């Protein structure tokens, strides 16, 4: 019985050597026999054999021994035939199967693949430890941003203090005496803030260094996946009796392992398609005056903030007409409409489920399952797929997606709720005047670059009931967003210029939750959502305003109850909860203000006399805040003074109930009447 700890070590070691073996044999096949490659391969086979035998894994030992023998034979001058290559590759596959069968997959095994890079010492660190370091480093980065906010606030205080002191002194000192005093204050503040700034700059560069280094711990060169894809291409070519040359460009580009894992299945599909659908048989290629050997190339490059991975071939190209025929067969489009489609629109059918132009359905591809998955993967990764194809010249399919889990450039957009939108999804921010809005079937549009763009309030899309396009003003701001081919506008009451935001994962438990691409942390230390523009677009176009309005109304009405007497608070809360309302409570106006920033309420029940911020002041704030300005406010107070009651009404309260005359049913009726309006 093999001890588990040794087995784990063997698996790590063998996986690494198998990957070397695979690379060697594929290089021998494509580049020709080289002593270095033979020796490298032989060494790897020999090591696997030795370790396997030591652990009593006889079957693995036997296969490794045979592979080593083949390398020896080639070394002694035996020609490297396709049969021998297939034998080695089959041997590698058998060892892989045997290894995975020894014990079910563990996290340690995932590591081995990821860290099998040769040429330097590899330290195996569990993924969760790396994630923890990245999290802490991310938090340091957030603290750095918060510190900058504090320095900025300090600058404002300096200016205000200088003005206040000058104002105060002007009462009893002539102007020429005041100036030196305020200048001195300025100079002291300047020295202190400069000192702060210098320290900040130093800390800042250290923090950025730690953060970026920690992020790059998760990076692996693309070539690790590239080699695996080369093997797949080779196998598919052999099975279809095609000749190919497989090229990898930019294999040294390092990508986040998480991104690579997500995109890998899509790449496998594209490679299979390129060889099976794209590259022609040698006979056909000869007839077309093409070299017998087709070229399949995979390239990786950065395109701005995005990663672009392209799979190209010099094969037959994709026929838009064939795709349309299949689409008509499947009932996706009628012939009349199909005749009006452009070539690009025809090609777009390849991403529909069940569409394939392959005449013969093989084990490899042609089932029409896959390209829709490629598209879905890209949507999930907030990316895009581009296709360029030319008859008999080939096809290039590019997957473009943003780098994840880093900092992104985003703008903060507010419409009741504040969210971050990646700059890469923003087309433009425009100022929209009321008269520019065109209403069609209760939907709002405006003209932008000769196109009608639909617009909806962000608050409405986020589930708030109190939404409006203009909030009583003559104009509003509209952020025009792009998702794939679609453009749409969201109304915002406020927005910031683009800033760098640290993107954190919204926790594995919430993975897949709609609308959330990630979470960032504000200068105040609060989480802020980074919107997934594709999800937002889906919601935008799927649901019309009235439909959403109905959905929003289905939720429980939420009331904020602000009262400093715990007895009154509990009585009122009990009455409201028993009537089916959701009730949040605050003990004074200050606490209530904080709650207003994080939630939306349908009605407010306020006391007047409270510490920190009284009910009258709170009423004024509620009335002057866009999201709450039209919400009902019920005052329940023990003050019976007419003047106070008048003050409350003037501040914006809708109804005033005296605690002396308080009765449960009357109170409930008032609340219900307002909420049903």
């Amino acid at each position, binding site marked *: 019985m093999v001890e588990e700890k040794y087995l784990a070590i063997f698996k790590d070691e063998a996986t690494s050597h198998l990957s070397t073996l695979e690379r060697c044999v594929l290089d021998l096949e494509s580049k020709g026999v080289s002593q270095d490659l033979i020796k490298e391969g032989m060494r790897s086979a020999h090591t696997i054999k030795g370790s396997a035998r030591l652990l009593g894994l006889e079957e693995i030992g036997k296969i490794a021994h045979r592979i080593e023998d083949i390398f020896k034979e080639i070394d002694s001058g035996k020609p490297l035939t396709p049969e021998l290559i297939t034998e080695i590759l089959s041997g590698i596959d058998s060892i892989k199967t045997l290894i995975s069968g020894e014990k079910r997959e563990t996290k340690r095994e995932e590591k081995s693949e990821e860290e099998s890079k040769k040429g330097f010492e590899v330290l195996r660190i569990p993924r*969760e*430890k790396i994630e*923890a370091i990245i*999290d*802490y*480093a*991310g*938090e*340091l980065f*957030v603290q750095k941003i918060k510190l900058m906010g504090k320095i900025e606030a300090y600058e404002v205080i300096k200016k205000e203090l200088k003005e206040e002191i000058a104002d105060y002194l002007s009462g009893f000192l002539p102007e020429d005496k005041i100036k030196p005093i305020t200048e001195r204050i300025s100079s002291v503040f300047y020295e202190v803030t400069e000192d702060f700034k210098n320290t900040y700059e130093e800390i800042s560069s250290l923090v950025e260094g730690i953060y970026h280094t920690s992020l790059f711990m998760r990076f692996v060169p693309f070539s690790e996946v590239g080699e695996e894809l080369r093997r797949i291409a080779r196998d598919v070519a052999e099975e279809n009796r095609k000749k190919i040359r497989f090229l990898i460009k930019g294999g040294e580009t390092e990508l986040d392992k998480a991104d690579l894992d997500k995109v890998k299945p899509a790449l496998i599909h594209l490679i299979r398609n390129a060889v099976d659908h794209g590259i022609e048989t040698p006979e056909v290629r000869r007839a077309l005056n093409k070299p017998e050997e087709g070229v399949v190339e995979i390239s990786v490059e950065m395109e701005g903030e995005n990663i672009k991975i392209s799979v190209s071939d010099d094969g037959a190209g994709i026929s838009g007409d064939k795709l349309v025929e299949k689409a008509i067969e499947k009932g996706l489009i009628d012939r009349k409409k199909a005749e009006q489609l452009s070539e690009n629109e025809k090609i777009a059918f390849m991403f529909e489920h069940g569409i394939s132009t392959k005449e013969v359905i093989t084990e490899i591809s042609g089932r029409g399952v896959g390209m829709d998955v490629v598209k879905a993967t890209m949507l999930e990764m907030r990316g895009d797929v581009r296709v360029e194809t030319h008859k008999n010249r080939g096809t290039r399919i590019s997957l473009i997606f943003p780098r994840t889990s880093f900092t992104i450039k985003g703008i903060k957009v507010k419409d009741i*709720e504040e*969210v971050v939108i990646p700059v890469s999804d923003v087309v433009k921010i425009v100022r929209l005047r009321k008269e520019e809005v065109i209403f069609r079937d209760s939907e709002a549009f405006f003209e932008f670059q000769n196109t009608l763009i639909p617009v909806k309030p962000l608050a409405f899309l*986020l*589930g708030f009931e109190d939404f409006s396009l203009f909030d009583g003003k003559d104009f509003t701001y509209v952020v025009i967003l792009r998702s794939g081919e679609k453009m749409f506008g969201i109304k915002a009451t406020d927005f910031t210029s683009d800033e760098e935001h640290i993107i*954190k*994962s*919204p*926790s*594995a*438990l*919430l*993975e*897949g*939750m*709609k*609308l*959330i691409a990630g*979470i960032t*942390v504000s200068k105040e*230390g*609060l*989480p*802020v*959502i980074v919107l997934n523009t594709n999800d937002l677009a889906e919601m935008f176009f799927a649901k019309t305003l009235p439909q959403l309005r109905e959905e929003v109304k289905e939720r429980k009405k939420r009331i904020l109850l602000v009262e400093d007497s715990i007895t009154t608070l509990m009585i009122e809360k009990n009455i409201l909860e028993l009537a089916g309302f959701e009730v*949040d*409570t605050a*003990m004074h106006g200050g606490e209530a203000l904080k709650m207003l920033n*994080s*939630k939306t309420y349908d009605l407010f029940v306020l006391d007047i006399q409270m510490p920190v911020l009284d009910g009258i002041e709170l009423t004024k704030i509620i009335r002057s805040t866009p999201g709450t300005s039209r919400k009902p406010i019920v005052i329940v107070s023990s003050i019976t003074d007419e003047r106070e009651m008048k003050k409350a009404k003037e501040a914006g309260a809708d109804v005033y109930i005296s605690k002396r005359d308080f009765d449960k049913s009357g109170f409930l009726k008032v609340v219900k009447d307002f909420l049903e309006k």
Partner: protein
Amino acid sequence: MDIKSEIRKRLFKALGEEEEKYLVLAKRKKSFFAVPFEFVREVIPPPPIKTLPLSPPFLKGIISHLGRIIPILEISEFIKIDEPEMRRVMGFLISDGRYIAGILINEYPEFKKIEEESEIFPAETPYKENTFLKGFVKEKETLIPILDIPLIFEEIRRRIKRW
């Protein structure tokens, strides 16, 4: 497994105790509930919670804690329990090694060893509110429900996929 759990496991081993025999008893207003100690990560001060737009009812929001974003669950969606008293609240972080989440409680939780006399009753009753319970523990003649944390996490994943 995170570092804290590893240290804790070693500590228990050194003390000759079994971690599985301990429960953490938490209080929410007047209700009590228990969580097997192995799933408890830490108790944290009242966190500022950010609600998520269009989120399911079992999700109160998220918090940022030491660089991690942690979802805060509304546990009353899974067991019959009081809503927390929002003025005196603290977070209670639970994890099964794969997922981590917080639950709001009102008092610092107690640590309890399961003695033989505080026998655990399996929660095999047909009532809906017992679905996410591992059983009950007897504490001062009161039966306190023990949460089945892996099952709750599994249910959350299921509901999120559907949401």
